[in-house]
């Protein structure tokens, strides 16, 4: 969790940004609203504009593109939330955004992509590319802190790509597997 204090036109705004998975954030507004944000692109250039996909949780049907500009990263001197750099080799902007998030924040195997919920070693991959998986089916086994954890599918779908190999050391938030549309 990182707290951003922004001054916009002499009004101070406090945002609490909580990283759920790589590129997925929970933003707590001052008025108590909780918003799911997916960071789809992030470049360190002068003309770069951060375009997070913002989905208000209460009315999650409305999906609005909001350009926040580089303000939050510059004005306070705070770094942009960590681990965004890793998303560069991820799917193109927009691919992740269609994932409809449920009311509870999803950390692990949500949406189009399965990301590592914690650091560990991939012990086994239980599915192959093209496999049809059901919700709750084990996709991979991740060993973390000497404990085997089954990573299961959070939705039905088809495996589009497997991004790791057995024996790979993964960090929190690393993409492991992608689903087809």
């Amino acid at each position: 969790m990182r707290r951003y204090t922004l001054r916009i036109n002499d009004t101070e705004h406090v945002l609490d940004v909580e990283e759920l998975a790589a590129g997925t954030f929970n933003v707590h507004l001052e008025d108590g609203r909780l918003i799911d944000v997916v960071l789809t692109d992030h470049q360190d250039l002068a003309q770069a504009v951060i375009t997070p996909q913002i989905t208000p949780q209460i009315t999650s049907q409305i999906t609005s593109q909001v350009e926040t500009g580089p303000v939050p990263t510059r004005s306070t001197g705070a770094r942009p939330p960590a681990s965004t750099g890793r998303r560069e080799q991820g799917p193109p902007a927009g691919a992740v955004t269609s994932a409809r998030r449920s009311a509870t924040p999803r950390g692990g195997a949500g949406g189009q992509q399965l990301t590592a919920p914690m650091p560990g070693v991939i012990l086994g991959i239980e599915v192959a590319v093209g496999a049809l998986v059901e919700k709750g089916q084990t996709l991979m086994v991740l060993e973390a802190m000497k404990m085997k954890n089954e990573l299961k599918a959070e939705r039905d779908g088809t495996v589009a790509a497997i991004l790791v190999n057995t024996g790979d050391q993964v960090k929190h938030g690393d993409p492991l597997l992608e689903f087809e549309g």
Partner: protein
Amino acid sequence: MNSETIDQLLQGVSNLTWQSVVMMLVGGLLIYLAIAKEYEPLLLLPIGAGAILANLPLSPLVDREGMLTVLYDIGVGNELFPLFIFIGIGALTDFGPLLENPKMVLLGAAGQFGIFLTLLLALLLGFTREQAASIGIIGAIDGPTSIYVSGVLAPDLVGPITVAAYSYMSLVPLIMPPVMRLLTTKKERAIRMPYTQREITQRTRILFPIIVTVVVGIAVPFATPLIGCLMLGNLMRESKVVERLTHASSNELANVVTLFLGLAIGSTMVGERFLQPSTLLILGLGLVAFFLDTATGVLFGKLMNLLSGGRFNPLIGAAGISAFPMAARVVQKEASREDFSNFVLMHAMGANAAGQVASVIAGGVLLALMGAG
């Protein structure tokens, strides 16, 4: 052959007492639990064997010069063996999850309440202060700490206390879940906790054991032997330059000492001394201590959930005990029972590592309270 010769030949049979037979059966039960149920087999098997060997009639092993007596004298009576074990535990413990999430220290402290509640209960049941403190330390859920503290305060109770501590420790996966489920709602168990991986620098990892040793050593001098050895092992692990020593402490040394420790503890379980109503009480109180630890941990977790506005999974509170890393795994299992993609393992590991340190400190505090010297 006159009757004297016959007596001498049969002195094994004639010296067999009902107590020693019962104790051999107890030893057999421990061996059974170790082999068939795999309850802490590394300790319970040698303890069971030690109990049988010590209770055989006129057993030369527990003579003044007997092997079991010698083992007891060189390692249990003077607290050497538990400290060796602690070096090995330190070499195996990864404090990273705790350093990533320092507020878990609070849970490590909360997991120790069982010690003091059990102590009070034991006092009420008529145990002396020293005995009550030794029984309470079962609530540290830490074998070596239990042996160390009870060895100082109530050497006559080391046997039952060790057996209680280790057998219940192996039962953590059975004892904890019912308490955890009873005290939490489905919704609480399903709370997700975002995990942010923070890189802990090697410098921090190296400084941690040194600073903890110095701070704890000054604050609670009685805890210095335990915390010092635990942190020595951890310093060797994190320094990454003495891998041979780290390896030796967590493997060869720990294995050899475990064998010696088990045999020596088993040899204290001699019929007349072990078969007392107090032993049953100790076993009962030990179980109570485990329940209380889990309950207070979970309740504290609920308090943290309240303070954080519903964003702390109270199950993690139960991991604030010393049984590392079993407690954290049990927490993860319970969390994923509710929601298969909820991973709280790293948080639980942090609480668990804190519990490891806190139980050692609690042991030192108890010794200080009892004015042990």
